[in-house]
């Protein structure tokens, strides 16, 4: 184990692992109870089935775009299960599986990507911020919310999801720095999936690891095997409780791999080899946990089939609901810009309302007739 010595936060380069690639428990590690491990397996399987269904919906034209979580399910499931319902999540656009694990209606999760509105769920109801597209900007919101919760005397921790590429953003630096200075109860959870669209990590940073960046901010940094859901759960939970205890923020780097292209619009073959992808396939998070659970007798063929059927059912219901066109109200564009619309917005809304009314009254082919 390589330990970076002479710092206040000794940091291992070796990712924390509870289950190795074959599903064998690492030496001396105490695993979560069997029921909890089985629950994680269930969430992984449902999460992946959801992810595959969403990708399929893209091909059917039901989603405008879909950034896949394939391969990163252990990160998203493990991290979400490690926080309380009263804690807050600050996800990015790739955290669909995390949001489904959180219990958010999958149709509401996909609203952004279907394109009928920017955010489909109620952030306060789920204590989950809208999925954030501008990179690393949400990390600052997490710090602010965590700091505010502490000012209010509440027992709330914020979990900020960040990608490897986003660690290069200025806002990531500012968020880490503010969090450390405020000792804010926030956990920065970096999914290092090796690529920022096409740019590999080696072109993103010269640091020994992303977790090492924590040292400069004066906070603990942890590396974890992002394809080992038990390890992710353990490391994030420890960081969350550390924050809850008033000990301040932690930077967690989960080492994982994005099995699919960046989105359906991307062509990953232009920047990485299939051999590389295949090597990561061997580290699959679900296969690994399934092997382990079978080996210890918690799971058998019937159990696997039952969970697969549950996932299938989840996907079928989603498919059915997504196969109807959403009902849109174009006037809603004007409704939420301000608490009270400006006179100028009222005027523009009236213009659109008149257009819509004319459209509704126009007989079939009326537009052509006018033209």
């Amino acid at each position, binding site marked *: 184990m390589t330990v970076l010595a002479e710092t206040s936060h000794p940091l291992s380069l070796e990712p924390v692992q509870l289950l190795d690639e074959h599903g064998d428990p690492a030496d001396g590690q105490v695993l979560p109870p069997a029921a909890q491990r089985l629950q994680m397996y269930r969430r992984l399987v449902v999460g992946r089935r959801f992810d595959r269904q969403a990708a399929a919906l893209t091909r059917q034209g039901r989603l405008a775009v879909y950034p896949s979580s394939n391969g990163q399910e252990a990160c998203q499931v493990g991290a979400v299960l490690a926080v309380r319902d009263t804690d807050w999540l600050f996800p990015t656009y790739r955290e669909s599986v995390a949001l489904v694990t959180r219990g958010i209606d999958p149709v509401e999760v996909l609203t952004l990507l279907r394109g009928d509105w920017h*955010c489909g769920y109620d952030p306060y109801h789920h204590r989950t911020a809208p999925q954030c597209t501008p990179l690393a900007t949400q990390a600052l919101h*997490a710090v602010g919310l965590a700091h*505010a919760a502490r000012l209010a005397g509440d027992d709330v921790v914020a979990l900020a999801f960040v990608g490897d590429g986003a660690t290069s953003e200025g806002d990531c630096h500012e968020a880490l720095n503010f969090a450390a200075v405020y000792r804010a109860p926030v956990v920065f959870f970096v999914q290092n999936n090796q690529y920022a669209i096409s740019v590999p990590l080696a072109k993103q940073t010269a640091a020994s690891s992303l977790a090492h960046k924590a040292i400069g901010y004066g906070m603990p940094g942890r590396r974890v095997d992002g394809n080992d859901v038990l390890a992710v759960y353990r490391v994030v939970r420890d960081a969350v409780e550390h924050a809850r205890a008033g000990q301040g923020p932690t930077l967690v780097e989960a080492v994982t791999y994005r099995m699919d292209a960046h989105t359906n619009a991307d062509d990953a073959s232009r920047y990485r080899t299939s051999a590389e992808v295949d090597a990561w396939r061997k580290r699959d998070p679900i296969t690994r946990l399934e092997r382990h659970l079978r080996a210890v007798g918690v799971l058998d063929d019937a159990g696997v089939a039952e969970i697969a059927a549950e996932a299938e059912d989840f996907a079928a219901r989603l498919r059915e609901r997504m196969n109807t066109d959403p009902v849109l109200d174009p006037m809603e564009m004007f*409704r*939420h810009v301000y608490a009270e619309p400006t006179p100028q917005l009222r005027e523009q809304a009236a213009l659109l309302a008149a257009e819509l009314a004319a459209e509704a009254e126009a007989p079939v082919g009326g537009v052509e007739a006018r033209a």
Partner: protein
Amino acid sequence: MITMAQALNTALRDALRADERVLVFGEDVGTLGGVFRITDGLTREFGEQRCFDTPLAESGILGTAIGMAMYGYRPVVEMQFDAFAYPAFEQLASHVAKLRNRTRGRVALPITIRIPYAGGIGGVEHHSDSSEAYYVATPGLHVVTPATVADAYSLLRRAIASPDPVVFLEPKRLYWSKAEVALPVQTEPFGRAVVRRPGTDATLIAYGPTVPTALEAAEAAGEEGWDLEVVDLRTLVPFDEETVCASVRRTGRAVVVHEAHGFAGPGAEIAARVTERCFHHLEAPVLRVTGFDVPYPPPMLEKHYLPGVDRVLDAVARLQWETA
């Protein structure tokens, strides 16, 4: 007599007293009381939890303000200077302005972003920008700028009480302007311009730092036989078309006066709107007297850059009086 700086300070103090959800933070706003002393004494009176210094990072200040507002606080943040607010622009344009809309009204962001702006104090290049055009072009923001001591107090109180984010532009050259005002004062809600000086021959439309310039020009014009009306917009967004257009319909002539660059500046929008709505009342094209389309000049040249009384009067003289 109190200064605009004192009025702003009192507004912050009264807001902190009135609502425990109000927080004031930014660079040097704590112990020092701000480089312009607008937050003077607030940490002493309200403690470090209510008024505090942050690390020196504007995106961080505004980004964390978003999280605090999401949790129910009402942050009042200070961007130390106009040009220092630019690092926060992504948070402002991508989140502050849009979160209410993104969440269908579920997440409101009652954040006040105080920005000392504009020139006239002999400041260096990055301490003198009139950056309002960037903000008014961003739907979801209110953009407010006081021109008087009373308005500085009342508009800031309204900004802090607003359910929506407010970019509060403080004309730094007017910080030391004085008036006999007994605080607290209350003025109209956002979106109400005010006629500062009634007149019959032409309307000068101004806001923030150019309101005193316009008033001075109107006084001087009186000596040349022109009776000028001066409208102070107070809020650029919402824009009070009604008051502006009513004035122009009365006078038939208009000049917009602002320090910001002329090209695609707020004056372009105002001139277009006035032209669209008052065309048949206009005796002359709406003119603009603005900053030149150059980067803010060095201090020794700013007197040539800033729209002054003479430049305003020259514009008034070009309003086709011979056709009257």
